[in-house]
C-alpha cells in the first residue's frame, strides 16, 4: 500500500475512526503499515486446543471424529467447519500444523509455549511479550506496555528480565482499572509524594539494590503516570461503533480482543488474551464447538479490523496454546494432551501470509501413553524456531545473549527463524 501519512489521517477523520488516540505522540500513533513500530498480540488457547477441531481437521478418517472441514480463502487450505469466519480471514496469516514439543503437562507446556524454553529449575525465562517490551521500550506509552487480558493460570511473566516486565493483568477490560483517582487535591498530592520520596530514601540506605529489586519506587511512578494518562481511553471499548463491537462478539473474550486492538493502536507493545476451556479430556467435540462460538468471531474480527486500520503489517498475531490433543479419541469422546504435531496460526507484522507448514498423519503411531509416543509430523517445527521467527519480525535481536541475575548468559531464543515465513 502506498499511502502517505497525511492521506491516512484524512481518511481516519473522514470515516470517524479512532486513529489518533490521545496522549500518544501523534506521529507515532498515526503511523501505519511498516512505518509503525511492531506490536504483538497473543491469543492464548488455555488448556490446549485440538488441532483436529481447529486448523488441521482430518474428516472421514479414524482420528478425525465427526469434525468436518470447510474451504478457506486460501486455495487448498481447509480448516474445521466451526470456523466459517476465520476461514474468510486466515489467508492473511500462516498456518503451522507440525509443531512439536516434549511437554505434555499444562504447566510445563504453557511455560514452553510462552517463553520458547523448557522449564529450568535454576531460572525463569521471559515470555515473548516481556522480551518485546524490554527490547522495544516506548516512552510515549503511559499505560503498561505488556498486558494480559482475562487472566488464565499462567499469565506471561518477565522472568529473569524482572517482574516489571510481567504482564499487567486485567481480568475484565470492560470494568476498566480500579483505584485510579487520587483522594486529595493536586497540591496536597504533590506534598504527599515529596514526603514519600524522603521516607523512601531513608529506607534505601543500606538497601539500595534490594529496594530497587522490590520495584516499589518504579511501580509507584508508573502507577502515578498511568493515573493521569489519557491513554486509558484505550480500555473504553464502548466508544467503538456497535457494528465493530458486534463483529467481535458479545463475549468477554470478544471484548478482550477488541481491547487488544485498541491497546496496540495506542502503542502498547504486547497483549495477551486468554480463552480458557480447551482441556477436553471428555466430550471434545461438543467442547470445541462451544469454544469456537467465541473464538471464531473474535479472531476473525481482530484480523479484519487490524487489516482495515492498516495495523496488521505492524502487529504480529499468534494464536496458540500449550499443546494439541491426541489424534486418538478416548472412550469418553475426549482427546488427551498431545505435544507431537499440533497447530498454530501466526502472521502479520510483515511476515508472509498464506503459508501452510507441515502435515500430520491420518494414522499416526499411537502409544498407550501419549507422553511416550514417538509420532512425528511431516516437516516438524520446533517451538524455539517459531519464537525466533516472531522475535526477529518484531525487530528484536532474537539470538542476543543477556546476562541473567545468576550470571548465566542466555539467548532470547535458542531457535532460528523459519525462513519460509519471512517476507
Amino acid at each position: 500500500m502506498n499511502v502517505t501519512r497525511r492521506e491516512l489521517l484524512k481518511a481516519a477523520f473522514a470515516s470517524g475512526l479512532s486513529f489518533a488516540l490521545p496522549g500518544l505522540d501523534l506521529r507515532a500513533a498515526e503511523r501505519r503499515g511498516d512505518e509503525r513500530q511492531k506490536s504483538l498480540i497473543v491469543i492464548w488457547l488455555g488448556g490446549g486446543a485440538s488441532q483436529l477441531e481447529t486448523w488441521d481437521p482430518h474428516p472421514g478418517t479414524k482420528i478425525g471424529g465427526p469434525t468436518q472441514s470447510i474451504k478457506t480463502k486460501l486455495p487448498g487450505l481447509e480448516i474445521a467447519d466451526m470456523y466459517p469466519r476465520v476461514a474468510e480471514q486466515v489467508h492473511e496469516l500462516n498456518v503451522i500444523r507440525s509443531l512439536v514439543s516434549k511437554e505434555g503437562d499444562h504447566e510445563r507446556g504453557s511455560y514452553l509455549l510462552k517463553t520458547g524454553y523448557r522449564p529450568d529449575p535454576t531460572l525463569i525465562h521471559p515470555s515473548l511479550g516481556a522480551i518485546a517490551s524490554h527490547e522495544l521500550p516506548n516512552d510515549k506509552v503511559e499505560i503498561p506496555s505488556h498486558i494480559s487480558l482475562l487472566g488464565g493460570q499462567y499469565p506471561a511473566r518477565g522472568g529473569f528480565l524482572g517482574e516489571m516486565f510481567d504482564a499487567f493483568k486485567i481480568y475484565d477490560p470492560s470494568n476498566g482499572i480500579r483505584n485510579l483517582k487520587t483522594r486529595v487535591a493536586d497540591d496536597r498530592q504533590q506534598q504527599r509524594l515529596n514526603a514519600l520520596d524522603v521516607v523512601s530514601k531513608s529506607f534505601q540506605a543500606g538497601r539500595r539494590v534490594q529496594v530497587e529489586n522490590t520495584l516499589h519506587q518504579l511501580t509507584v511512578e508508573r502507577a502515578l503516570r498511568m493515573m493521569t494518562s489519557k491513554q486509558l481511553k484505550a480500555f473504553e471499548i464502548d466508544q467503538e461503533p456497535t457494528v465493530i463491537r458486534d463483529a467481535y462478539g458479545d463475549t468477554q473474550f470478544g471484548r478482550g480482543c477488541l481491547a487488544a486492538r485498541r491497546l496496540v493502536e495506542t502503542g502498547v507493545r504486547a497483549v495477551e488474551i486468554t480463552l480458557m476451556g480447551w482441556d477436553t479430556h471428555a466430550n471434545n467435540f461438543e467442547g470445541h464447538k462451544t469454544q469456537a462460538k467465541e473464538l471464531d468471531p473474535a479472531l476473525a474480527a481482530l484480523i479484519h479490523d487490524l487489516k482495515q486500520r492498516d495495523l496488521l503489517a505492524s502487529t504480529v498475531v499468534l494464536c496458540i496454546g500449550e499443546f494439541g490433543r491426541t489424534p486418538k479419541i478416548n472412550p469418553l469422546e475426549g482427546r488427551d494432551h498431545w505435544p507431537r504435531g499440533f497447530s498454530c496460526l501466526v502472521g502479520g507484522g510483515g511476515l508472509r501470509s498464506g503459508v501452510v507448514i507441515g502435515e500430520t498423519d491420518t494414522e499416526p503411531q499411537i502409544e498407550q501413553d501419549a507422553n511416550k509416543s514417538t509420532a512425528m509430523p511431516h516437516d516438524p517445527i520446533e517451538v524455539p524456531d517459531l519464537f525466533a521467527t516472531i522475535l526477529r519480525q518484531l525487530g528484536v535481536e532474537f539470538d542476543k545473549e543477556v546476562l541473567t541475575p545468576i550470571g548465566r548468559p542466555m539467548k532470547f531464543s535458542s531457535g532460528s527463524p523459519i525462513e519460509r515465513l519471512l517476507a
Partner: protein
Amino acid sequence: MRWKLLLPGVVLLAIIWLVNFVTQQPLKGIANEKTARPTVGIDESVQKVNTFFARRWAGEELQPVSTADELTVLRRITLALMGTVPSLEEIRAFEQDSGPDRLQRWTARFLHDQRYFDYFAERLARGFVGVEGGQFIVYRRDRFLNWLSGQLEANRQYPELVREMIGGNGLWTDEPEVNFVMAGYDDGEGFNKNKLAGRAVRAFLGQRIDCAQCHDHPFDHWKQNEFAGLAAHFGQLTLSAVGVREDRDLKFEVEDRNTLEKKVVEPAVPFGDQWEPTKGTHRERLAAWITHPENRRLERAIVNRVWGLLFGRSWIEPVDDLPDPPGDQIAGPKVEGAKHPKTLKDGEADFLDLLGADFREHGYDLRRLIEVIVTSKPFLLESKSDVEDSQRLGHMKEHFAIFPLTRLRPEQIIGSLLQASSLTTIDQNSHLISRFIKLTRSNDFVKEYGDLGENELEDRAGTIPQALLRMNGNLVSETIDAKPFTASGRISQMAPNDEKFLELCYLVCLTRRPAAEEADYFLPLLKQVQPKRRAQAVEDLYWTLFNSPEFAWNH
C-alpha cells in the same frame, strides 16, 4: 445493581464498628507472664542452628551482616506470628522492659496470644486445605481454622494434629479436623481421593506426587502405581448421616484411561513399608505412616514451612517441593529437570534434617520451634548491607546471611493498617484479625492486592495494581481519616509538640523513630501547619508512611 455500590460502605462500617468494639473491650489476661514464659532449654538448639550457619557462611565465604535493632526484630515477630505491626502500647511496654532477654520473653508472650493462635492457624491452613472457601454445606474452613487455632493454643504435638486431620471421623461441624478430608469432597462426585492423597503428601511430607495420578512423574521418581496405592488409603472414606466415616466394604478402584477397565487397588506406600501398621482404618494407617518418627519427610516439611512463615522465604523453595532426604536409600534416581537446591558439601549437615531432628527430639513442639528460629542468628540479622553487588547479595540471601526483604501478604498489610489506626493493641480477645480475614476474603483488597493463595511464599516484587490500591484505595483512605477515635485523630490532638507528633506517627506506622534527615524534612513543614489544619497534616503523614516501601515489606 445499586446495592453493590453500597457494599464497600457497609463493609467499611462493619470494620469501623469492629475496631471500635474491640478496642473498648477489657484485656483478657492473655499475656500472663507466668504462663507465657520462654521455653526452657532452647539454648542448645539455638546453638546448633547458629553453628550450622557459622560453618555455612564460612564455607561460602560470606560475611553475615550485623544484627538488627530489637524494635525491627519485634516488628518481624509480630508480623509473622500475628499478622500486624506492634501497637504503640506494645512498643512502649517493650521499651520500658529492662529485664534480660526481652525479645525471648516477648516472643513467648506473643506465642500465648490469641492473635498468634488465629493468625498462624490461617497461615498453616493454607498449606493444609488451601484458601478456597469450598461448599459451605459440606465444608467449613472457618471451623477448621478455629480447631487449628485451639490446637496451637494447647500446643499439641504436631504429628497428633496430622493424624487427626487425616484419620478423623464425624461431622465437619462437630469434629472440625475432618474438614481436611471434606476439602476434598465434591458434591456430585463424592470424595476426590486422588486430590486428598496429593494434598496429604504435599502438605505433610513436602513433596509433590500429584502429577503421578495420570502418568509417571515427568522428572521425579514417583510412579503412577505408587500414587494409586497412596490414594487407596482414602478408598473407604465415605459420608453418612454422622459425617465422615470409614466403610470397610468399599474398594478403591482405578479406571484405566485407555481401556476403561476398572481395577481394584489395595492401599500401599511408596517407601518405608515397615512404618505402616497393619491395624486401624486405611486412613489411620496412612496417618501413622506419614507421622512415623523415621519418616524424616514429615519433620523436614514442617520446619521448612515454619521457617518460611517466619522469614517470608522457606529454606528450600517451593515450600512443598523438597528433595528427598539425603542418604535416603528408598528414592529412585532422578532424571533430567530434577531440582538440586542447596547442594550439600562433603560432610555438611542438611539443615532441614538438623532442625527437623531437633523439632522431633523436643516433643514436636511448634511453639519451641518458633522460639528457636526467631532466637537464632539469621533471624536477628539486619536487612541492610554495604554490599551493592546484586549477585553477591543474592548469594547472601540464599544462605540467609542477610534478612530477606519480602513483600507483606495482603492480610498483613490490612492487619498493619488497622493496628496503626489504633494506639492500643487491637485486642486478641476479639479474634479481630481472623474475623477480618474472613470478612475480607471476598473483599476487593485481598483480591486486588493479589492473594498468592497456596503459593504465598513465592518471591514476588510489587505491582502497579498494588501501588494504586495503597495510594487511592478505599481502605487506606478511611483508615487514615483523622477522626476522634482513630490513631491519626488522637495523635493530632494529644501530641504536645511537633517532635512528639512525628515520633508517634513513625512508631505507630513503621515501628521506629524518624531518622535525622526525615525529622529535618518534616519538622519545618509541621511548624507551618495552622492548628485547624493539623488533622490534614496527620492524614498526609499517615498516607506517606503507608505508601513507603518500608511499610509494605518485611525487613
